[in-house]
């Protein structure tokens, strides 16, 4: 059943996220856990549902197992629909060729069939690696009001950081006259958020043209947007002012996690008018023991806490032993932290065991960087992992050879 939809959403979720190191060794970046019980992709998916968009194609490619399983039939986001809903779109084989997705534009090009089944007037293109709460409906209204061919969401960034982004130079009414990818001398501070709305016919036209061009890198930012600008299409920048964070690095992911803490957090997850949905299982309630101390932290179900937790984010099913101390850290699902272990300024990935008395990282003020411990590892007792290290199985084997020093 394919009812006509006003707008179809294409969510690019194939990103590897190589700057997240071991966090994305086994999962795609959009499936990286966030904020105690979410994954990054919960944000764009929840935004879609809260904005009233119910047809979302999720384009997966890199390490799709966890992501596919997580999205499933889309039920946690109310996207298990008879018409539309969440549909996972992996690369596929055709009669004459088989291809991976070669760039963002190519990924959408390969799924033009999916888009056209719903005969939409507009296509919203999102990426699955940002943390933000945004009403896409308002952006679509803006797009319609301007009678635009393409609208790009932009956010004001500090001038000194502008050269890390794609920058839109606009006229007063928001019309884009120039686009510069990572400019050395930025003329404006309007950074592209990687959120585009296209008229469907225009999008299909340009994707086909881009596909026919052998020199193209098949990328929206590098090829499609410049081509549309050069052809004089009507392109507008839609200014967004809320919370938005590119969580492409360990540092920025850590910061975004910390942004959920505090009494008036910059990223409010308790807002009942704009809920962030996630797939969760039924864990028992958290048990907080007699000697536990919890300050400025968020803790999820299934945890058992006997130690001290400060300025930290604890995912479900984490065990914190007696006398253990956790500060300024993000501890993911199912991690066990033994008695008297201490963890500072670190990420500990899922199901890792930190044995009794071991020491991870260093106080945030003194630390050289964030320490990252991969998933399913065992950090032997009395080991000390220095600040800023990225720990995986090879690191542990090496450490064992050296006798733990």
């Amino acid at each position, binding site marked *: 059943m394919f009812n006509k939809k006003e707008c179809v959403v294409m969510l690019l979720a194939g990103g590897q996220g190589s700057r997240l190191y071991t966090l994305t060794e086994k999962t795609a970046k959009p499936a990286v856990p966030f904020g105690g019980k979410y994954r990054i992709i919960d944000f764009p998916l929840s935004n879609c549902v809260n904005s009233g968009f119910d047809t979302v194609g999720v384009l997966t490619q890199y390490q799709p197992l966890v992501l596919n399983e997580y999205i499933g039939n889309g039920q946690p986001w109310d996207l298990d629909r008879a018409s539309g809903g969440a549909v996972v779109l992996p690369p596929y084989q055709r009669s004459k060729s088989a291809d991976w997705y070669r760039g963002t534009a190519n990924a959408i090009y390969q799924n033009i069939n999916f888009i056209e089944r719903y005969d939409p007037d507009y296509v919203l293109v999102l990426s699955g690696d940002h943390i933000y709460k945004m009403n896409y409906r308002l952006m679509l209204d803006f797009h319609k009001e301007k009678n635009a061919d393409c609208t790009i969401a932009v956010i004001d960034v500090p001038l000194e950081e502008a050269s890390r982004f794609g920058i839109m130079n606009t006229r007063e009414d928001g019309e884009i006259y120039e686009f510069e990818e990572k400019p050395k001398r930025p003329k404006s501070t309007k950074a592209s958020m990687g959120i585009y709305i296209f008229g469907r016919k225009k999008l299909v036209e340009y994707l086909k043209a881009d596909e026919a061009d052998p020199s193209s890198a098949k990328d929206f930012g590098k090829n499609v947007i410049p081509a549309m600008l050069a052809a004089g299409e009507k392109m507008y920048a839609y200014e967004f002012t809320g919370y938005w964070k590119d969580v492409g690095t360990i540092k920025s992911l850590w910061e975004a996690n910390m942004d959920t803490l505090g*009494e008036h957090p910059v990223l409010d997850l308790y807002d009942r008018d704009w809920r962030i949905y996630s797939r969760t299982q*039924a864990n028992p309630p958290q048990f*907080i023991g007699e000697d536990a101390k919890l300050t400025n932290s*968020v*803790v999820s179900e299934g945890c058992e806490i006997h130690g001290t937790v400060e300025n930290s984010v604890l995912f479900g099913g984490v065990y914190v032993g007696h006398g253990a101390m956790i500060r300024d850290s993000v501890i993911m699902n199912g991690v066990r932290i033994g008695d008297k272990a201490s963890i500072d300024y670190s990420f500990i990935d899922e199901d890792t065991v930190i044995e009794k008395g071991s020491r991870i990282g260093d106080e945030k003020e003194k630390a050289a960087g964030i320490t990252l411990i991969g998933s399913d590892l065992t950090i032997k007792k009395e080991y000390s992992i220095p600040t800023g290290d990225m720990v995986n199985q090879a690191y542990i084997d090496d450490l064992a050879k050296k006798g733990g020093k």
Partner: protein
Amino acid sequence: MTVSGIIFSNLHDKNIPELTRQRTMASVPFACRYRLIDFALSNMVNSGITDVRVITHNNYRSLMDHLGSGKDWDLARRSGGLKILPPFVSSYSGGENLYRSRLEALFGVISSIQHIHSDYIVMSDCDSICNIDLKDMVNKHIESGATLTLGVKDTVFEDRHLKNVNVIYADKDGNVTDIERDPRHATGVKSLGLNVMVVNTNELKSLLNDASAHGYSSFINDVVRRNVGKYVFKVYRYDGVFRNIYSMKEYYDCNMQLLRDERFRKELIGNPLRPILTKVHNSAPTKYSDGAVVKNSLIADGCIIKGTVENSIIFRGVKIGRGTVVKNSILFQDTYTGENVFLNCVITDKDALIQDGRMLSGHETLPFYIEKGQIV
């Protein structure tokens, strides 16, 4: 071998009138995030029973809301799954009244029972909570060749007046010999009925026909007790954790036992092989602010805690204000406490609002209960 389940959702509502005024016994909240029916349902699902009927009586809106399609127990199925049986006013239930006993409840849903094609039926109440491996119980039942097997828990008493419980007597081979209801001076080892039983489907149908012909009114005291000797009735000795909730005091104490008794807590709600499943909500994790002090408590997700919480059970979405002290209390979903509130031995029902500076205290033998939506 196929097994179906039947759950009685409100046989003993009158035992806790406060909590069941607007809900069934089955949907009484328990242990931060559960409803009592979650134990009966999870026991079945964890043992591979995926065709489950829930018999309702009155006030079952909250139960419908909790169960939904049954998907959270993996019971939203095309074949089998969860079926809610709303009450029938039938000739068996005495004129215009709804059923008053387990037997009348079964008479009322006889047409649904006729459609059960499984070989065995497990029947369970909601006010006796346990985490039981029903697969083992069903296997033992089949091996023994019995018509019906009653789950029992051996417990030692010294001159206690037992309430809301059947004491089952059996010989050394496990054959039921007698049944006593609420004995006044229980002393020594007594086998308490779990109100969990396995019965052969065809024989249940003929037992019900026979009971109807004799005008019986109680399943245990008439159908089972009067037929001892005529049929093989066995006991199954369960040695896990078990509580029977028959009064407000028991309800309160059972929650508190989760805090003081680690074995009870872990076996009841922390067994990874037999997890207690419940309706999954969408709450953010719980946030502990700078001034929070929390000791020996169970806390659900979605809470914001700025004050002190000791020996308490805190449900989803509860807000504890700055300077507030909550001790030995049970706060249901979305209870809001302002600043500098003091609560001791208090049970607040859903959406209660305690304003700044209020001080309330009950006693562990008589917890102070605040109704749903009350403003103090």
